[in-house]
């Protein structure tokens, strides 16, 4: 009975270690981000950083990003998440995220855009951005 439990704990730990990360522009003041706050940012429920600057969310409309979106937001995939954003935009409750077609384009956009954040499946090898692993 103990062996399966230990295997389960190891599996959960490995899954957590390989979990998605947030990539932000270096001017973002936040040094840490909770998983709950990251979820609220992805869902459009929170739209400003703690210093009052607007959060510029960058989403990659790429099936490879679906897993990270599913884990971090609870939405089924990027398209599902984007439909939630359309609800906000067409009802006057928010502004649209920047949408690009690949993770590489998302990282480049984050590097160039103050206040921006992108979600990626694993820590990238990219310069000019900062990686924040959400705390759970």
């Amino acid at each position, binding site marked *: 009975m103990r062996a399966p439990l230990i295997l389960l704990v190891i599996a959960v730990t490995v899954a957590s270690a390989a979990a998605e990360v947030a990539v932000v522009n270096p001017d973002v003041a936040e040094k840490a981000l909770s998983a709950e706050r990251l979820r*609220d940012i992805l869902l459009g429920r929170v739209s*400003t950083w703690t210093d*009052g600057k607007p959060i510029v969310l960058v989403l990659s409309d790429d099936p490879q990003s679906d897993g990270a979106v599913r884990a971090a937001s609870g939405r089924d995939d990027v398209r599902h998440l*984007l*439909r939630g954003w359309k609800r906000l*935009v*067409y009802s*006057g*409750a928010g502004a649209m995220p920047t949408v690009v077609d690949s993770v590489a384009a998302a990282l480049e956009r984050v590097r160039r855009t103050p206040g921006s954040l992108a979600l990626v499946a694993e820590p990238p090898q990219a310069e000019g951005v900062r990686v924040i692993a959400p705390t759970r």
Partner: protein
Amino acid sequence: MVGWVLPGEPSAAHQRLTMRSILLLLALTASSTAADAAVAEERREPFDDLRLEVHGFVSFGYLQSWENDWLDETTDGSADFHEAALNLISRPFDRIRLGAQLFERDLGVYDNGRVDLDWAYAAWQVGDELELAAGRLRTPLGLYNDVRDVDAARAPVFLPRSVYALRFRDLYVSIDGAAAKGLIDLAGDMDLEYALYGGDKRIADDTGTTTYLGAAGYGEGVTVDVDWTIGGMAHLTTSVPGLGFRISVLRVDALRIAGDPTPGIELASDLDYWLFIGSVEYDLRAVTLAAEYSRLRGRGSRGIAALGVSESTQDDGEGMYVSATWRQKRWLEWYLAGEAEFDDATDRDRSHAWRLIAATAVRPMAHWSLKLEAHYADETLETIQVENPDGAEHHWWGVALKTTVDF
């Protein structure tokens, strides 16, 4: 509606042709924008610097019914079904957001392509817990009232009519006033979203709501006015992932409806209303379950002043539904719902509607959807009687097709 055409003034047919040309142009613009994301991204560069965004959508649809007409002469089929919106959103300063949207709709005999200022606001984000806004604001009633025109928000063509009254969109969709809303973290993984709002409600004389009220007995020249409106919404996200509960309350003080059933004779009503909606939504990622219950309570009087006739009147409408949406693939959704509606909750035998709705949504691209919805109804409500003055059948079928492009 027949009207005089002055020399040099465009005819109704010409106006309709012009409107369709504008819609076609918007659709082409939207589809070209959606089709080439890379180009679109480059085009957004200057807007990014200004924190300025332009978005919109265009949709076209077709309605067909059997046994009863519904929204139009739909037993013969009707293509008088299109919507378009164009909005501008700006974030000129940190914490400040400005926005406005124009909305156009033709839904059978209702609205006929009229363009309206849908919403326009200035919002100040004080913090996560508080945002203040003023202007023309969407009202958060139930799970979907504030997004009732947003096709991307759902799989079916129409929201459940038992809770989201189709012919009274103009009455419920927005207020002119102010609102406070926010997100409050609670213990565990729970949080509470809230909204409080209040203001005035203005309904133009040529809206779908006034058109329906005219057909329902108020006759020509229908006007709708209220003294004030207040409301609130609270949405609890529970520690069970995806499970949330919402309550919404709306108070409309002195809703006055007046019209001339016969020339020179004015029929007027004046009622105070409460509307309550309780909602539950359970999002299981690939499957979303939702259920809502709404209860309307109106009390007041109705009469014809010229004849010295006045009587107390009340409105006790009630509606409820359960629905399930299954996202089978990234581009394919299925929807099934059952709903019940009663004109008088205190006497459900008087009139009723039981409906079964099935729909599918295909989304070939992120910005393009195709929808097919079918419904079967066992119905004796006043609305279906009004649209079938020669006698409505209790059992009837309807189908709606709709395609939408957004950008």
